[in-house]
């Protein structure tokens, strides 16, 4: 699948934006600036971007507790997202959601989700709409969420109803502190998905090009009316399960090794520069533009309007 220079730069910009957004959050959280639970997506950028670069605002995605990357990749406003995480009333969800429930239904992003496994059935519903519109519905899940009954029900229903739903399992090998090897009874998420009666494949979640290529084929397959599909992406998370996780389950040197050898941004840069598709300098320019954007997002978030007590009871239809 040949990508134009513009498309390559765009994909890199999206991945870099996610990485810098998350790295900056990591620092700001350490300073005590941000409340609540935050689960960083850094390390998995090629998954979100490799999937979402195929999508239009009329396609749907639903995300997880680790949702920032999916939001950015689907086109949520980065500054409004940052403001949300800071709890400002100017945030994307007016300070009601924080990191774990960011959504922008207007761009087809049906929400990060604090309940593991809750997204899959909702993706089936979006698949009903997608079927009538000729679009697709994507359900991002983890290797932990794949064990939830809701995920099983959703996969079966999508098959029965022949819906254009793609279950994207980002296998980062951990659900919180527990290894995938312990918690996933099937040989793989792919084998399990296939047993539900859908097309199921694997791709390398560290390589944007592999994810992009595989997703292109699956989307075409689903839009052609063949029913749902599943893809398992082998990937890594670079930070703890949540910010503050001591990560005692990691092996010696594990984090250093994956950061060194399994970094999707480094992989992308090496590939495009070695193939002479892009110059290193072009990527450096993107880096500094993204750094500027993130600086602006944080600076604006720190001085953005704070919500007041009256805001607590807005959007509940009726309040007492």
């Amino acid at each position: 699948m040949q990508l134009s220079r513009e498309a390559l730069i765009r994909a890199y910009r999206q991945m870099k934006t996610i990485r810098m957004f998350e790295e900056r959050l990591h620092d700001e959280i350490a300073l005590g600036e941000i409340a609540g639970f935050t689960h960083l997506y850094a390390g998995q950028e090629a998954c979100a971007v490799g999937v979402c670069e195929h999508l239009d605002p009329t396609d749907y995605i639903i995300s997880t507790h680790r949702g920032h990357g999916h939001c950015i990749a689907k086109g949520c406003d980065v500054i409004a997202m940052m403001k949300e995480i800071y709890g400002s009333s100017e945030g994307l969800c007016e300070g009601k959601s924080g990191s774990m429930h960011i959504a922008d239904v207007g761009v087809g992003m049906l929400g990060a989700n604090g309940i593991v496994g809750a997204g899959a059935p909702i993706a089936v519903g979006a698949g009903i709409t997608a079927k009538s519109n000729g679009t697709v519905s994507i359900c991002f899940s983890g290797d932990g969420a794949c064990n939830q009954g809701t995920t099983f029900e959703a996969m079966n229903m999508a098959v029965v109803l022949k819906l254009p739903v793609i279950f994207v399992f980002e296998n980062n090998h951990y659900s919180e502190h527990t290894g995938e090897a312990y918690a996933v009874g099937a040989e793989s998420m792919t084998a399990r998905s296939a047993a539900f009666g859908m097309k199921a494949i694997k791709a390398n979640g560290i390589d944007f090009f592999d994810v992009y290529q595989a997703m292109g084929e699956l989307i075409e397959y689903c839009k052609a009316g063949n029913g749902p599909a599943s893809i398992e992406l082998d990937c890594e998370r670079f930070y703890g399960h949540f910010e503050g996780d001591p990560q005692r389950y990691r092996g010696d040197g594990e984090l250093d090794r994956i950061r060194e050898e399994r970094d999707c941004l480094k992989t992308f840069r090496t590939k495009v520069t070695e193939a002479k598709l892009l110059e290193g300098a072009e990527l450096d320019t993107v880096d500094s533009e993204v750094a500027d954007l993130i600086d602006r997002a944080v600076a604006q978030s720190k001085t953005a309007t704070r919500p007041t007590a009256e805001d607590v009871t807005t959007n509940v239809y009726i309040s007492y």
Partner: protein
Amino acid sequence: MAVKMIRDVIRDTIDEEMARDDSVIMLGEDIVGGNGSAGGPEAIGGIWGTSGGLWAKYGPDRVIDTPISESAIIGAAAGAALTGKRAIAEIMFADFIGVCMDQIWNQVAKFRYMFGGKSKCPITIRMPYGGGYNAAPQHSQSIHQFVTAMPGLKVVMPSTPADTKGLLAAAIRDDDPVIFLEHKFLYAVKGEVPDGDFILPFGHARQVTQGDDITILATGMMVGMAEKAARTLAQDGIGCDLLDLRTTSPLDEEAILDSVERTGRLLTVDEAPPRCSFATDLSALVAQKAFASLRAPIEMVTPPHSPVPFARELEAAYLPSPEKIMAKAVQIMSYRRG
């Protein structure tokens, strides 16, 4: 007497009960942690630090780390309990009760009744609940009102380390299902805990402060807030009879009615929204059974009818506080019949 944090009291009490009865088992997500990882098992011992060391001591057949599958956790605990085990199930956040509600409501709660009293279901379902962490709408809720409304469940909400020990041991030894609600903010609270076998029977309120002006009813996290308010109010000459109800089901009706008959005023403090709640239930009880004693309208301090919001300012405005309790108490005292 030892001085311990509530999280350690929970772990030690489970340890003592597992040591004394081989049939006690425990299930939950990451209650061991590290299974299937390079770091190996016992990497975490529960994300709340309430099960550290138990896997090493009792092994994987009794301390069972599960996949993320709340329905199966409760169902498996129930099946084990019906067939001779004494099960302790942990639901990592009480909010996740939504995922396993059928197993709790239609299964566990109804076995003994539906089976004509011929079965036992000794299961303790531990659920960390409550707000104050800016953990937003799906990780901050209080759920006692739902489970208290379900016939066939007992519901415990401890507020002190000593009560935690006595009530948890009673829950584990109980032959019926018990929902044991632990406020996340109380885990680090320290206090004296009796050594050895210590059981607190359910349905007995604890008198926290004594006074003749207002009865204040609270559970769990709300007890400490109400106590703070009561001590300040006492300095202003308002005497609060504060009861920590300890269990919402069974309910110590006698203690509540005795107190209101003396004070003639009632303030209920609750962390759940106000409609169809435990606070309204207590208000109804007193209106029905102590109507003649009332000298002022019954009042409640609760959050508003909304989900728990994320932002710091919003959550602070949402949750009850000692200041809100004091303001309500002053309002009740200033009531004059028109």
